[in-house]
C-alpha cells in the first residue's frame, strides 16, 4: 500500500483515499484541426510505460478531491516527489 502525501491537505493519507489517473503532463495538440493522424493518435492513445521514473496523476478521491502529480519509480514503487497541478517535476529521469 502507498502512503501518499496530498499537497492540498498537507499530510500523508492511505492509498485507499486516492485514485491513479494515469500519465501526467500529456499535452493536447494546440491546433487539433491541423495535426496529423499520427500526432493525434499519439496524444489520444499512446502512453509511456517506463521501467523507472514515471510521472503520473493522482486524485484525492475520498478526501479533498484535488488532482496532483506524483513521480513514482515503477520498479521500487518508491514515491520520489509529489507536486501540484501546473508545476514541473524536480525529480526527472536522466
Amino acid at each position, binding site marked *: 500500500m502507498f502512503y501518499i502525501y496530498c499537497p*492540498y*491537505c*498537507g*499530510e500523508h*493519507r*492511505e492509498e*485507499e*483515499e486516492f485514485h491513479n489517473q494515469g500519465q501526467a503532463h500529456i499535452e493536447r495538440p494546440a491546433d487539433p484541426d491541423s495535426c496529423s493522424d499520427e500526432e493525434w493518435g499519439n496524444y489520444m492513445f499512446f502512453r509511456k510505460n517506463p521501467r523507472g521514473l514515471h510521472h503520473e496523476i493522482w486524485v484525492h478521491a*475520498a*478526501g*479533498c*478531491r*484535488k488532482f496532483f502529480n506524483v513521480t513514482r519509480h515503477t520498479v521500487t514503487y518508491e514515491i520520489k516527489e509529489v507536486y501540484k497541478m501546473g508545476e514541473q517535476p524536480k525529480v526527472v529521469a536522466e
Partner: protein
Amino acid sequence: MSEVNNEAVTVSVMNQLPDASIQGESPLFHADLASVAKKGPKTGGVTFKEEALMGQITLRLNAENADQLSAAEKALGVALPTQPLTSVVEGDVSVRWISPDEWLVVVPGLKAFEVETALHAELSGHYQVVNISGGWTIYKLSGANVVDVLKKSTIVDVHPSKFPVGKVVTTTFAKSGAIIRRSGESEFELVVRRSFADYLWLWIQDASREYGLVVQA
C-alpha cells in the same frame, strides 16, 4: 463567450426546507432513536446521537480572493478556515475545511435558507453556494471508547497527536465517505450521506457493541 459579464448575476434561490409546522424526518427517522434511547442502556463506552435536520451548505470560492473571504465572513459571522483540515465554530454556525476552495457550513436546519440567502447577497464573482441539507446527516459519537470504534472504522490516524480537537478530515468510514471532525477530546462528529445513514447506524451499533452503546435522542 466573447465578453465577460460583470453585471451582478441574480441567482434564483428557493427555500428547499419546510418550516417548523411540518415534522421533519431525518435519515434515521425509521430507526426511532427516541424509543431506542429510552429502552437502551444509560451507561457505556460509546454514546451515539444524531444531530438531525441540520442545515448544510457547500460553499466554494477562491481562497486567494480577499473580497470573497471577507464577504463570506460577513454573511456567516465567522471567518472561513483557510488552513487545511481545520474548522471553526461560532455560536450555532460551524465551518469545515473540505478542500482549498471548498467549505461545508453547518447551521441549524431552519436557519439554512437565511444563511444561504445571505451568502448570495454578499458574495460576487465566481463562487458557488449550494444547500445540501437534504443529502447529509450528522452523527455525534462520544465516550471513553469512541477512539476504539473509529480505529475499527476509518483509515485515518485518530491519535490526538495526529488528530487534534478541531481537525477535519474527509475520508472513508466503514468504506463509505464521511467528513470526520474531532469536536472534543473524546467526541467526534461525522457528516455522512443520507443514503449511507442506515448502514452506518448499523455499523456503529455493531462496532461499539463490545463497549456498550448509549443512544441519545
